[in-house]
């Protein structure tokens, strides 16, 4: 009897498929067991446990908890789906990893594409069968535990589909890696490399670049926006809990298909005689070696830098990384330690290339660090000036705003390169993070500390504060305050960081505040703040449960949960009955007693001419002695001091927009400071523009404070003194 059948030239040979699948029955068992112990069994155990604990629960609560349980189980399942994907990827091309089997299969009357696709479909079927059985078991278990309801299935199936997609991604990457590898272990290593190499290399480049730059904003370049696209593991990590989206899923499937087709294309071209070789394409092996060496070298340098924060250490790390990785990869590729120094000239070329890379990009030879696109070249920008980061997603495409941003940052570049610095940190500066998109759509992410004295800074702040989005943010915050009041919650307030213990009626306070606040714009926000009211705790009266901060009660930024009381809010100030004066300076004496210090001396510093040159502390001018000064009477000092506000009470919102007088700084000395002071202890605290010197003298204690004036608060007669 002769089998009357023609050899197939189709992509899938059914006879071969049947035969292969029959041979792979043990792998079906593997797929079954992995799914069984990571899906079916956890569902049974956790739902069983949940049911035992649910005797007094409502159905809604039970279903809610079951949904959470399902999510936890499917996260565990996801991890194993990745591993299973790699396992089946190895199985699929297992016959290519041994010469005997590779020769055998390729002697058969089958096209290479047929062998490839048949093997892949067969392996996937094995995985599917193992998974499907468990899906049935899982559904039965859900039925048994009365959670086979839309709410649960609505959680279960989208996450399961995600897991399947990630399984396929791991599978496709492994098959792709296997198509140019002739060794199963190397195939797995290459899979890990493909998954991790782009993200690890990119992150390393960012870290290295960040070490030598000032403005380069690694927070953006290293953010999930970019990182998630560099590895399926990263994508899973960043997006797993997000809602199920069809388009990304289809895109992922498309990438998987491209990987599998790419694998087939490589498979077609590979030489069968190279089975059992780590990398079947000789030149590719060399390319991979140097690619991996690049990343290892970079991280070795960063590792050594981290030990001592020293460039020579880092260079030593580079050398170690390059030489050791060269030896290691040579040994792996040749499967012999004898080959570890093979192609030593390549190492020399690599060393030169890496040095060039490090010099050009690491040390920013082309000055990309302070590159700010011109206004004409900007299409839009994401700008954050508040520390909350909630404005990050606000896209500004208004030409006036873009021009203001570009001009301000370019001026700041110039000021920094000229060594012109703000006299104080904090109130005299603000931080800008800008993702500037060029007309070509290329993001330029920079992080600047902008001095309020820099040309264009005030204009930029004005535009930013006057933008309708500021008002929208404030409205949202006010809505949250309103809801607290309307909801009848118990509110615990802190005024100027002091607990008030029911001293104020919040509803009444907020009504006054809102009346006086007006609209959120530059005019409002630039005014000096005399107090800050904070909702410290929100309690539900019936249960006593606490939301703690307003941020938790309503989804608003931390920075907007404070109410800054501006100097012109007379009714609010009156209601708060603020008595504390900025001049009431206190300190602890040697016995730990809080004592007040009398004002003993006062000076006005003329800051109209900016001081240049960095101090040893960095880019800030810490020493006011560099400015011209005049001594004034302590009476005038007190008088001026009463106009001041304590900047330490400022929230970020207040500090950024707080308009400063650019002309002068008031400097006050408290306590008994002898002429021949012999300071045994020194401390300064300048985060909010304040500067203290504590010193012990035989005659007692003294304290120095320096203040900047809010805009318009310097009397003309004082300015005249400066002239």
């Amino acid at each position: 009897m002769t089998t009357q059948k023609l050899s197939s030239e189709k992509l899938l040979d059914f006879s071969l498929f049947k035969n292969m699948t029959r041979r792979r029955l043990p792998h079906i068992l593997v797929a079954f067991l992995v799914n069984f112990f990571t899906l079916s069994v956890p569902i049974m155990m956790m739902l069983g446990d949940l049911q035992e604990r649910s005797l007094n629960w409502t159905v809604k609560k039970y279903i809610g908890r079951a949904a959470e349980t399902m999510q936890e189980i499917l996260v565990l399942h996801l991890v194993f789906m990745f591993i299973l994907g790699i396992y089946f990827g190895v199985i699929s091309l297992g016959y290519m990893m041994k010469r005997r089997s590779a020769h055998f299969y390729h002697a058969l009357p089958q096209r290479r594409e047929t062998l490839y696709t048949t093997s892949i479909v067969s392996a996937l079927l094995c995985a599917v069968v193992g998974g499907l059985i468990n899906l049935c078991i899982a559904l039965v278990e859900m039925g048994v535990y009365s959670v086979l309801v839309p709410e649960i299935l609505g959680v279960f199936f989208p996450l399961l589909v995600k897991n399947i997609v990630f399984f396929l991604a791991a599978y496709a990457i492994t098959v792709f890696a296997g198509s140019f590898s002739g060794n199963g272990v190397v195939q797995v290593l290459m899979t890990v490399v493909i998954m991790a190499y782009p993200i690890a290399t990119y992150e390393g480049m960012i870290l290295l670049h960040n070490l030598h730059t000032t403005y380069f904003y690694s927070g953006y370049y290293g953010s999930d926006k970019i990182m998630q696209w560099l590895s399926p593991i990263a994508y899973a990590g960043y997006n797993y809990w997000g809602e199920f989206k069809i388009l990304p899923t289809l895109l992922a499937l498309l990438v998987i298909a491209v990987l599998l087709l790419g694998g087939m294309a490589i498979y077609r071209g590979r030489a069968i005689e190279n089975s059992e070789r780590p990398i079947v394409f000789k030149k590719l092996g060399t390319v991979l070696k140097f690619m991996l060496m690049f990343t290892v070298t970079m991280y070795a340098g960063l590792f050594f830098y981290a030990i001592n924060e020293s460039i020579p250490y880092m260079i030593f790390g580079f050398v170690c990384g390059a030489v050791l990785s060269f030896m290691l990869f040579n040994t792996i590729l040749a499967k012999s330690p004898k080959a570890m120094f093979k192609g030593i000239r390549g190492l020399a070329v690599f060393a030169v290339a890496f040095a060039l890379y490090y010099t050009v990009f690491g040390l920013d030879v082309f000055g990309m660090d302070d590159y700010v696109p011109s206004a004409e070249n900007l299409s839009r920008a994401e700008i954050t000036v508040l520390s909350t980061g909630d404005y990050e997603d606000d896209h500004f495409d208004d030409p006036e705003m873009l021009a203001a941003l570009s001009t301000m940052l370019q001026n700041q570049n110039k000021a920094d390169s000229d060594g012109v610095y703000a006299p104080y940190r904090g109130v005299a500066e603000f931080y800008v993070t800008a993702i500037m998109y060029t007309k070509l759509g290329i993001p330029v992410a920079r992080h600047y500390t902008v001095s309020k004295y820099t040309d264009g800074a005030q204009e930029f702040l004005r535009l930013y504060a006057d933008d309708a989005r500021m008002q929208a943010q404030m409205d949202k915050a006010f809505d949250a305050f309103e809801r607290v009041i309307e909801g009848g919650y118990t509110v615990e307030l802190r005024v100027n960081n002091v607990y008030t213990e029911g001293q104020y009626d919040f509803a009444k306070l907020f009504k006054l505040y809102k009346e006086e606040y007006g609209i959120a714009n530059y005019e409002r926000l630039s005014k000096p703040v005399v107090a800050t009211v904070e909702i410290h705790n929100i309690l539900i009266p019936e249960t006593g449960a606490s939301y703690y901060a307003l941020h938790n009660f309503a989804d608003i930024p931390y920075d907007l949960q404070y109410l800054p009381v501006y100097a012109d809010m007379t009714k609010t100030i009156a209601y708060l009955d603020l008595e504390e004066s900025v001049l009431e300076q206190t300190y602890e004496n040697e016995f730990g007693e809080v004592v007040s210090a009398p004002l003993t001396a006062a000076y006005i510093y003329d800051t109209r001419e900016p001081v240049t040159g960095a101090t040893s502390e960095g880019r800030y001018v810490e020493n006011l002695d560099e400015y011209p000064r005049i001594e004034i009477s302590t009476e005038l000092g007190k008088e001026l001091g009463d106009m001041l506000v304590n900047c330490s009470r400022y929230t970020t919102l207040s500090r950024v927009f707080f308009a400063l007088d650019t002309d002068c700084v008031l400097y006050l000395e408290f306590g008994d400071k002898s002429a021949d002071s012999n300071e045994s202890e020194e401390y300064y605290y300048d985060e909010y523009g304040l500067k203290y010197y504590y010193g012990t003298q035989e005659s007692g204690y003294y304290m120095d404070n320096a203040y900047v004036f809010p805009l318009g608060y310097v009397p003309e007669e004082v300015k005249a003194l400066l002239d």
Partner: protein
Amino acid sequence: MIKICGVSKFYDDFKSLDAIHAEIADGSIFGLVGSNGSGKSTLLRVMSGIFRADSGEVLYDGENVYENVALKDRIVYLSDDQFFLPNATLGDMAKLYASVYSSFSWEEYNKLLNIFSLSSSRKIATFSKGMQKQAAILLGIAAKPRYLLCDETFDGLDPVMRQLVKRILADAVAEHGLTPIIASHNLRELEDICDHIGLLHKGGILFESEIDSLKENIHTVQAVFSREIGIEEIARIGGTVSIKQRGSMVTTVVRGTEDAVREKIEGLAPDFYEIIPLTLEEIFISEMEERGYDYTKVVF
């Protein structure tokens, strides 16, 4: 007709096959002999479409074998290092062959199973090396190919089984028009089965010829002369490949048909002479020596 046209194959920088040219007629039994590393296995793998030639091509009736499914359906390659599916029985392997070779004959399979006395249901991994070799040959022949490419097929077979396999191959040639190409490093194994032979050395075919023609055209003559005779005088008859003289006895290898050799030697008026046919090995030694090779280095 198999036509090997300028086939070259490199393993990285090592040239395994160097522009090989050869022709193998259908229905012949072609022996491919050469020392280890001469390129026999590589040539068979190129011929079976496993390897792609770096240059040149292997044509079967004018068709290139590489990635030619229809053609490969008529070719079975038996490796020197046989592969069987893990834990497979002979029956499992037969099913695989049957699923991919359109001409696979279960009838032939069962017949050969009886001849070789192998069990279809026993795992091949439990077979001895010789039995595994038999199993591979069984499967190859049951697939009823037109071309059977055998790499060191007789290695590991006992003398009885070796003869049996030779007989089976001869029967297949006679009955199905099979063209076996048998590679071996042992010339003696091929002598009694092959009708054509090619000698492979350092990736190139030194020569290939029909064995009968080789044997018909070279002879050893042992002659006894009572008179004084010099080697030069013997050489003058023409066609001598080698001449050895020990006293009155001269042994010379002479090219030409038996009649022509007889005529030449009688012209020297020996007291007695005898024409002895050469073994294949002796023919190869002569041929190699004539081409300036040390035969022992080429084959052994």
